[in-house]
């Protein structure tokens, strides 16, 4: 239920240059992205979903339209090099089994998903390969190696609409994620929905609130000059409302990731996107 207190209305009116999301068209390297579309049927309070791209300044938006201008692509380059590097006791590189990374087209649209009763993210799959099949050490969940690789693999699905399953084996995880989304936490006593569902399009100080979609992750943030993972961002968000963040790669964030991905079903994968 959309709660708009008198104070919130006062803030909205007082903020002056409040700007809702724009209706520009996002075209990356000539390919048009689906960045605005009808909200999936499971969303009760939102009619249209918008990519985070629509909430950024025109200069930031421009950075994502060209693969040379996109600062996140440097890390994709590094991952391309990493693809061929032998690592671990099995003497293998990613390339030894997977040959061309282009074979991963479509994978990003389905993750996170349930494999053998477990909810798995792309980071889980990569580390599983590294530890079980390469005999290599697991990468840090949000370190530069991992974000570069998830960017490279996600890039293979760029343009394709997100399409995660929320029924069957995924149902319980999805319900848990949904509950987390709407639960207030922290010293500031806020839930994800308070900003990203009740107040997207509004300015919070000088930041333009988005719907908190995840179709562009890992995302290059101007703020820290690097690619940021989803769980890394969840952690930051929780710290901002002065809550103790859940663990990256832990059950809560994985469930939340599934629920958030489902709120973006229909939006094109934009990874690696550029945000503030």
């Amino acid at each position, binding site marked *: 239920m959309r709660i708009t207190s008198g104070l919130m209305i006062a803030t909205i009116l007082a*903020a002056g240059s409040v700007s809702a999301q724009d209706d520009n068209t996002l075209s990356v390297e000539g390919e048009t992205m689906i960045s605005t579309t009808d909200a999936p049927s499971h969303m009760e309070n939102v009619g249209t979903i918008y990519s985070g791209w629509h909430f950024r*300044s025109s200069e930031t938006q421009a950075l994502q339209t060209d693969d040379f201008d996109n600062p996140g692509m440097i890390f994709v380059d590094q991952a391309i090099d990493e693809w061929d590097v032998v690592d671990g006791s099995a003497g293998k590189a990613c390339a030894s089994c997977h040959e061309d990374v282009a074979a991963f087209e479509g994978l990003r649209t389905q993750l996170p998903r349930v494999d053998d009763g477990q909810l798995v993210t792309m980071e889980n799959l990569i580390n599983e390969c590294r530890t079980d099949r390469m005999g290599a050490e697991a990468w840090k969940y949000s370190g530069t190696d991992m974000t570069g690789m998830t960017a490279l693999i996600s890039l293979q699905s760029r343009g394709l609409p997100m399409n995660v399953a929320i029924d069957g084996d995924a149902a319980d995880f999805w319900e848990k994620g949904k509950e987390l989304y709407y639960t207030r936490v922290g*010293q500031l006593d806020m839930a994800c929905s308070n*900003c990203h569902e009740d107040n997207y399009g509004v300015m*919070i100080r000088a930041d333009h609130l988005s719907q908190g979609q995840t179709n562009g992750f890992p995302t290059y943030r101007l703020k820290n000059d690097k690619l940021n993972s989803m769980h890394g961002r969840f952690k930051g968000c929780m710290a901002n409302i002065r809550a103790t963040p859940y663990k990256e790669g832990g059950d809560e964030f994985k469930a939340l990731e599934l629920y958030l991905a489902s709120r973006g079903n229909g939006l094109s994968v934009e990874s690696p996107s550029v945000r*503030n």
Partner: protein
Amino acid sequence: MKLTRRDLMVMSAAGFAVTALPAFASLTDDEIAKITGGAEMGEGGITLTAPEIAENGNTVPIEVSAPGATMIAVFADGNPVPNVATFKFGALNPSQSASTRMRLAGTQDVIAIAQMADGSFHKASANVKVTIGGCGG
């Protein structure tokens, strides 16, 4: 109605939190004088393109252009070190223009000085607002 912490935060959030550093203007003037030798600077003949509001001070795209110039020097008068970059153009450079991305420590003026082929100097400046984001900056 009970005034909650959240209400307080909401009430104080009306508007930008804009940082304006004390002007390092004299530092900048000194650096500019090193190039111009204190000579008068004309307006016009040089274009400086910068956003009115920078989404993040880390990466602010700018473009400078001065047809016929041999050199353009860029300064930021509110940064701890005002010098940003100096562009020297060769004969194979048809437009004497360049784009780059720079760091701004806070709201301030970006200043571009062009030295033309005849030795004269021209100046352009743009004020860029650098904001602090709401979600932890």
